């Protein structure tokens, strides 16, 4: 949701008598008056600052124009701001505060930098917004009510259209909507100079505008907004004297990001006070992520480092399966491709990603860790655009555009080809026992969208992914038959509209997934069918109260079949497994899980927002019924406009994995794992771009399934606590970056399972429930420091670094071994569980990109170097056959990825 404050750069660059102030040099003492100073170059915005929309005004859907007089010194700094034309409702203060932070390229008078006073008008206009994933605020126009009509001309009553123009962004061809169109009548002043600039209108959604003048003469037309260079063109009187208007098409360069759009994050206008949002620029240019937005999440505070660069989201010490990733409000089953591959969803369709390390609202259920909500871009496909990315690992393509009937479409696809390249690099050696595992993956996304009468929209999104693992043996004489596959396909329909005073988003998703593994002797298949549904309602009753409610459900059918499975027998032999029984196993499981939730956003006083919520879940699985009630509360207290305290507390439940609940091989009577989460933090904004967030958190997880004589029992526990610090410079014209530091502890324990005798000694590892002490969890990383920085220089170059320093993960040390003669192997003797740690992890990633911007397309070459210093980070320890010698298991070495990408 954006509170849109359109900062319209309306400048009065001509120093007219009466408007200039002190800074001009005193005239020399001469008998003849010196010539009047002449403005040779108007000031230009160097550092735009978007004002904060006053909350009350926004809530009341108020608009307003504030005209300021701004004094700018010869260095371009703002020295004084005064309100010339007030609008009230807090607009004046907000406009003045923003203006004070702005920086300009100084004006030049007579060719020299000079102080100047300008008039500057800021238009406050509440744009169409949404609270969550497309749900509009109550009472507001839906996000896609259709294109806005062209603005009417200003009442200076131009009589004739002399110029028709269109302004688009260079490279992407995106129209500049809402840019101010100003006209300077050249030589029309009494002294023969130029008249002050006069705003005659703004560009429409297609970037089009018209200029009308009532009297002939030369004009200069300036079209500008805060994010792009100005389009400026002089038109002579002769040009404008023709019978038809002059057509003018201007492509202007974006100041901020090149290949990608930038969406400025909204501050504190969202009920999810625990949320952190990343913009598109941050999502696709962080070094080491190869343009993958979902990998950027691993650089956020509270997210532990995943081993071997794998695509795991380890949030506040929780198991990766405890964190949900939602696309369009529905969970996605697989997030990353195999073996540290990219995410399964294209960046081109991602608008922004909201990340909740904890304390998420009742709209999200069935997860006890964190939540990642991927917001899909809506309203795309109005014009034809496309993008291609080719690198050493895979290639992807994207296209969006309109089709007849008012339908907007977008399509994307990706395919890897490392399986084709790798054989050229794998040494071939007869007798070698090494094998290489090679991922083969592809994914696709397709979306169609259409506005419907009444101010809503409908959309259909289909996406899917496939991963296969092929095994290549170095010995060409060895035939290996092994194939594993995982894939899914989802189709989601959504309808966003307003019903009475309520905003509504209804969605339904059908999902199908399959997983298989096959060798020459056995095969295993798993499939699922899922039907998700969700309805979100929201309404704002007053500036102090809004209510959201909804229901969601999932109907799930899981099926597994294993052919010719060497199923171990329940017996004893000494030496090896008893001859297994080759069985065909088929299992299936139905699961129904509806939920209802309600949440309020209440401002008892303007500076304090409370968000209480309640969620009720019901599960019917394996002929058992389970319920959960999750109360949650989040709050935000703005102590000052730049200092806020925020926090959350809540209960969270989830369902165990289906295999744990199986009637034969699992335990259907398992309890629902649940967590209680607590967090409190401070957010300090130093400037519009710089802020510091500090958060203390404490999470306890209960009733986690662990192996036991009952197959599984709900006796596992874990807890995490710590401090997260995030110092962030948001995306500005040239630079963005952040430093994230997490100091935390993640621990696990297992309560003694009933019936399991306590077995002492340190020989081997007790298998079932005999370990009562709290010990470091597998993802415990005491210190986790991440520094990310990206700088754009020379306009078309962008370079960035990402550095990570992390405490080594816990491991259980091997303190000795003994020979088991019956099996002919050495059994390791282990020290205390988790009592040792791997070495500290350190890695530097570097990224550099050169862009070539043309009028209608942009082309970029990038080099992303993972582990640029080739640090030998140990992911674990390898031992020899009797655990006397050891060597570090090294992680990913230096990995350069060269790529090309283009966008039109």
């Amino acid at each position: 949701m954006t509170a849109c404050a359109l900062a319209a750069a309306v400048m009065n660059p001509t120093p007219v008598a009466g408007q200039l102030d002190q800074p001009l040099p005193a005239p020399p003492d001469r008998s003849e008056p010196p010539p009047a100073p002449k403005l040779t170059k108007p000031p230009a915005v160097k550092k735009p600052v978007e004002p904060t929309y006053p909350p009350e005004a926004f809530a009341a859907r108020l608009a307003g124009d504030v005209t300021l007089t701004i004094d700018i010194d010869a260095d371009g700094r703002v020295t004084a701001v005064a309100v010339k034309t007030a609008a009230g409702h807090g607009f004046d203060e907000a406009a003045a505060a923003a203006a004070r932070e702005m920086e300009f390229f100084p004006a030049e008078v007579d060719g020299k930098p000079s102080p100047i006073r300008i008039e500057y008008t800021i238009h406050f206009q509440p744009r169409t917004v949404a609270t969550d994933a497309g749900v509009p605020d109550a009472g507001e126009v839906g996000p896609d009510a259709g294109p806005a009509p062209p603005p009417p001309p200003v009442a200076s009553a131009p009589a004739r259209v002399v110029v028709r123009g269109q302004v688009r962004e260079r490279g992407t061809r995106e129209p500049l909507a809402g840019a101010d169109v100003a006209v300077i009548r050249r030589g029309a002043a009494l002294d023969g100079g130029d008249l002050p600039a006069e705003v005659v209108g703004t560009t429409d959604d297609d970037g089009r505008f018209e200029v009308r003048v009532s009297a002939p003469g030369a004009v200069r037309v300036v079209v500008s907004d805060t994010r792009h260079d100005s389009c400026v063109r002089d038109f002579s009187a002769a040009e404008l004297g023709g019978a038809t208007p002059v057509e003018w098409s201007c492509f202007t360069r974006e100041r901020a990001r090149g290949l990608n759009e930038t969406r400025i994050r909204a501050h504190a206008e969202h009920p999810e006070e625990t949320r952190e949002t990343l913009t598109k620029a941050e999502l696709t240019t962080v070094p080491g992520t190869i343009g993958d937005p979902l990998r950027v999440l691993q650089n956020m505070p509270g997210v532990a480092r995943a081993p071997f660069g794998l695509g795991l989201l380890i949030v506040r010490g929780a198991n990766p399966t405890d964190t949900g990733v939602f696309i369009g409000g529905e969970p996605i089953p697989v997030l990353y491709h195999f073996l540290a591959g990219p995410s399964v969803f294209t960046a081109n369709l991602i608008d922004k990603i909201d990340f909740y390390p904890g304390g998420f609202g009742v709209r999200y259920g069935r997860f006890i860790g964190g939540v990642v909500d991927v917001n899909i871009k809506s309203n795309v496909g109005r014009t034809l655009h496309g993008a291609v990315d080719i690198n050493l690992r895979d290639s992807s393509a994207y296209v969006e555009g309109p089709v007849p009937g008012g339908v907007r479409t977008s399509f994307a696809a990706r395919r890897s080809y490392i399986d084709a390249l790798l054989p050229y690099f794998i040494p071939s050696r007869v007798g070698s026992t090494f094998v290489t595992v090679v991922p083969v993956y592809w994914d696709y996304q397709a979306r169609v969208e259409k506005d419907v009468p009444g101010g809503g929209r409908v959309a259909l999104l289909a996406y899917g992914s496939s991963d296969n693992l092929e095994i290549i043996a170095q010995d060409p004489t060895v035939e290996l038959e092994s194939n594993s596959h995982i894939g899914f396909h989802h189709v989601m329909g959504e309808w966003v509209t307003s019903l009475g005073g309520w905003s509504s988003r209804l969605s339904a998703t059908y999902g199908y997934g399959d997983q298989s593994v096959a060798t020459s002797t056995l095969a295993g298949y798993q499939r699922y069918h899922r039907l998700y549904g969700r309805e979100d309602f929201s309404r704002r009753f007053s500036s102090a109260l809004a209510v959201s409610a909804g229901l969601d459900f999932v109907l799930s059918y899981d099926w597994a079949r294993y052919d010719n499975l060497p199923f171990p027998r329940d017996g004893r032999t000494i030496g090896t497994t008893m001859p297994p029984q080759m069985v065909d196993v088929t299992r299936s499981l139905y699961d129904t899980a509806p939920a209802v939730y309600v949440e309020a956003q209440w401002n008892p006083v303007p500076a304090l927002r409370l968000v209480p919520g309640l969620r009720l879940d019901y599960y019917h699985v394996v002929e058992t019924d389970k319920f959960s009630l999750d109360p949650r509360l989040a709050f935000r207290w703005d102590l000052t406009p730049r200092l806020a305290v925020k926090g959350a507390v809540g209960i969270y439940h989830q369902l165990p994995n289906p295999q744990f609940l199986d009637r034969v091989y699992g335990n259907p009577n398992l309890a629902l794992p649940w967590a209680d989460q607590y967090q409190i933090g401070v957010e300090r904004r130093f400037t519009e771009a710089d802020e510091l967030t500090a958060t203390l958190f404490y999470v306890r997880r209960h009733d986690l399934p662990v192996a036991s004589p009952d197959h599984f029992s709900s006796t596992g526990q874990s807890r995490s606590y710590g401090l997260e610090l995030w110092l962030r410079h948001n995306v500005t014209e040239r630079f963005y970056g952040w430093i994230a530091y997490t100091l935390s502890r993640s621990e696990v324990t297992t309560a003694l399972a009933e019936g399991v005798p306590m077995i002492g000694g340190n020989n081997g590892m007790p298998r079932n429930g005999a370990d009562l002490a709290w010990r470091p969890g597998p993802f415990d990383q005491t210190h986790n420091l991440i520094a990310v920085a990206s700088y754009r220089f020379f306009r078309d170059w962008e370079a960035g670094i990402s550095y990570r320093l992390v405490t080594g993960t816990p491991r259980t040390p091997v303190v000795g071994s003994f020979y088991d003669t019956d099996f002919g192997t050495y059994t390791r003797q282990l020290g205390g569980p988790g009592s040792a740690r791997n070495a500290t992890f350190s890695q530097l990633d570097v990224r550099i990109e050169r862009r070539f911007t043309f009028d209608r397309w942009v082309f970029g070459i990038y080099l992303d170097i993972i582990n640029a210093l080739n640090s030998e980070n140990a992911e674990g320890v390898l031992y020899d056959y009797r655990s006397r010698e050891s060597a570090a298991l090294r992680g990913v070495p230096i990995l350069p990825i060269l790529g090309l990408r283009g966008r039109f």
Partner: protein
Amino acid sequence: MNRRPILLLASALSAASACTDFANPTTVVDLRMLAVQTEPSEIILDADLSNPAMPVVDPANNPGVTVTPLIVDPLGDGRPVTYTISACPNNPFAAAPQGGGQGGGAFPSGGARTTVGSALCDENSPTTWLLTEGPVPAERGIQVFLGIDQLTAAFMADIFPDQFGNLHGGFDLGMPLTLDITVNAGTEQIRGIKRVLYWAQRINDTQLANQTPTIDTLSLFYFRDDATFEPVDEPMPIKPLPEAPHDVGQGVDSVWILPSPGNAEPFQTTVIDADTHRAVPFTVERETLRYRFFATAGTFNPQATSSERNPAFDVKAPIRIESQYTLPTADQIATDAYGQAVVTIWVVVRDDRGGESWQTRQLLITP
């Protein structure tokens, strides 16, 4: 280590393995216990199981067990090597042996309830008994004797419930008593375990105690057909000690060592029935014989062979029990004035019920 980045992106596993330079387990360079023979390896007690948790054992059915370890100390220069033996019950909750079976319930559920545990005896446990009165010279075997009370205590300790509340353990699945063998040589000490399988009661009338597998002959050949895996040249028997070492010949890099196939006998055991949850007799049509190869210098590949194929993996090659011995190079072994050296090799055979034996030979090599 292969540092090509594309390769390592896709093959973390193989690259990790390639990065180590660990000692080869088939090369014996220091004090090691390679095998332990127990005779008998399987004992049927025919006990009174009126109370399954407390079998009453007839002393007449409780024989002593002759324990003979294979302990080698190539660098010991003849120093005295001795060993002691303790015994303790099987721990069904201990770690599973590396590469050993998990027993029932390993897939897809967790919790292995019937696995034979791999653990040393806890010296402080009341159910750990010292069976040797003092250190025994390594070259000697010794007969050990477990008392009735000790046997009963071992059965009582080896009991666990399944998820349906039924008790199982040594009394119905067989009780693998653990022998903990501690070897001392100078200041050096190593430990190992060996099991003797006890049956409280006969499974059925056809059950016979285990016969120790044997290797009657060890042969050597030079070339093997890559297509058929058959020896190209005729295998030559390697004569046992005290015969002279077998001269491999000059200019030879590797040879194949072929043990004679053993007699893989059928045997009776019990498994837990998935429907009744009770232990029922189960016949293994043919036991698996596994061979392990060791040498004082050079390496064997593979280090272990088997008389049966793992049904989970269908390697196209036929089942073969020989292993290829790669001779040490001149810089890896001290040679005499003739440029020759003597290498000792051992081949150990095991079955599924604790039966174990070995053969020792010497080769004369010219690296």
